[in-house]
């Protein structure tokens, strides 16, 4: 940075649950005594209440969890102990979401700080993914094999809940106008990515085995459309960003092609992809 540095404050609001986890390197393992089944049970966790709706299934689900991928945390911890842990959204994730795979060079002139997260705003979730789609993309009755299922039965992922609001800071020698421009570019690219996802869901809808799963996907399309129409307004300096992991290849980067394959993960509570946030520049 060469000129005078300005501080910009923004409000970040989660629209769906956000997965920001360094994953394997800091996973907690029940077999190693890092956490107990009881801990999972008492934690107001495994919040996929729409899917696991009876006590028997809930109990079985708690029993299955053998690995926890925690949210980003300062320090190192020998055991899973959320109430003792300092969690944060890495500034690098927000900067990366604006960098758009090296396409926005101005983003290099941003200095984005971490945002500290209260552990009460985090929960353990299962990963739900569209699986078993027919390989040749045909949709006749015999090939309706697609399902929305838990991805990795043994795994629970600590995610930042939807509908949480935090304030963040970034520093740059760029003017407010340039920062808005950068956010707007990211917003437009994310809109396009979400539209691609809607289109992709159209393509796979008929390949789903159960009507119930089709309905979930249609609901997700509708929820995304609502967000695109109502939740953001660049004139009010409010932009959509997609943060973190488990968002699938479609939402990972701005693609040149409309015909991109990729996994679809679903936040079953909000019926949206993971990682959707709005950023409002103040």
């Amino acid at each position, binding site marked *: 940075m060469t000129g005078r540095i300005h501080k910009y404050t923004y409000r970040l609001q989660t629209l769906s649950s956000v997965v920001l986890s360094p994953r394997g390197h800091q996973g907690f393992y029940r077999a190693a005594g890092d956490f107990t089944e009881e801990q999972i049970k008492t934690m107001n966790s495994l919040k996929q209440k729409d899917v696991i709706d009876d006590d028997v299934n809930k109990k079985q689900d708690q029993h299955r969890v053998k690995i926890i991928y925690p949210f980003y945390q300062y320090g*190192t911890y020998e055991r899973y102990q959320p109430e003792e842990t300092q969690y944060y959204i890495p500034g690098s994730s927000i900067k990366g979401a604006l960098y758009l795979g090296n396409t926005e060079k101005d983003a290099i002139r941003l200095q984005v700080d971490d945002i500290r997260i209260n552990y009460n705003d985090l929960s353990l979730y299962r990963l739900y993914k569209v699986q078993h789609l027919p390989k040749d993309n045909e949709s006749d009755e015999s090939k309706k094999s697609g399902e929305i299922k838990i991805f990795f039965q043994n795994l629970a992922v600590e995610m930042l809940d939807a509908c949480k609001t935090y304030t963040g800071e970034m520093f740059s020698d760029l003017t407010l106008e340039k920062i808005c421009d950068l956010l707007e570019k990211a917003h437009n690219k994310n809109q396009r990515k979400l539209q691609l996802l809607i289109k992709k869901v159209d393509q796979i809808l008929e390949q789903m085995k159960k009507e119930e799963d089709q309905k979930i996907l249609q609901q997700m399309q509708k929820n995304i459309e609502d967000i695109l129409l109502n939740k953001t307004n660049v004139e009010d300096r409010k932009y959509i960003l997609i943060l973190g992991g488990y968002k699938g290849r479609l939402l990972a*980067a701005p*693609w040149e092609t409309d015909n991109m394959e990729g996994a679809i993960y679903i936040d079953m509570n909000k019926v949206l992809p993971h990682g959707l946030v709005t950023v409002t520049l103040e």
Partner: protein
Amino acid sequence: MSTQAIRLKVTTLSNLFIGGPPTTFEIGGVDMYTVTDFEGKPYIPGSSLKGSLRNIVRDLVRHHKDGQVLKIGQAYREYLDAQLQEHMKRIEQLNGDTEKVSRMVERYNNQMEHATAECLFGMEGFNHTPKLIFNDLKVIATDVQRDSWEHLFSIDAKNKIHPDPQGPMANPRFYKTVRPGVAFTGEILLHRMELLPVGTDVIRSFIESALQQFNEGIYRLGNSGSRGYGRVEVAVIQEESDPN
């Protein structure tokens, strides 16, 4: 001659990474380590603080054209001029080599022309000048009973995604950093400052206000400041005089 010191306390507010020497590489493991001492304790090298503070002072020189900044630049010009006159007197007595003398005069004139408060960090080609000397900042041990310093670190992962048409290319790196909340202490020595025609109190006050700039969040210590690392709180904790 006396050397005064500014004693300071630096507390990390985010992860801090100061690139250490290369170590053994383990696939999937930590591949970037912050510097540690022989006991495995993190520390802040004096050179790291010096580099960041010099950056602050350079910006202050660029953006503030009055007050202490100008006074200190002027003081260095006067100091260099006095040094030059003294050398000339000695050379006249010794009947020195004319070419060498003219090279020396040119070197002094050039430095005087460009002298600013940044001279506090040393001047290339000029030894024994009034300058700041930075000691390493040592971690303040909060729990001496511990036999390991691992509680002072974070293991942090950064994953860069490249949008390759064949599929996103991920480039994960694992960093061992100092975690937030770790406090360090050390000193900046005000070496030979009495040779400058400006009070040492002016230098001290200028450096203390430059150190305060760290607390605004713009200036960072170490690497990857643009990605949230290296935010620190700096406090001047005491003044001391060490007759030498």
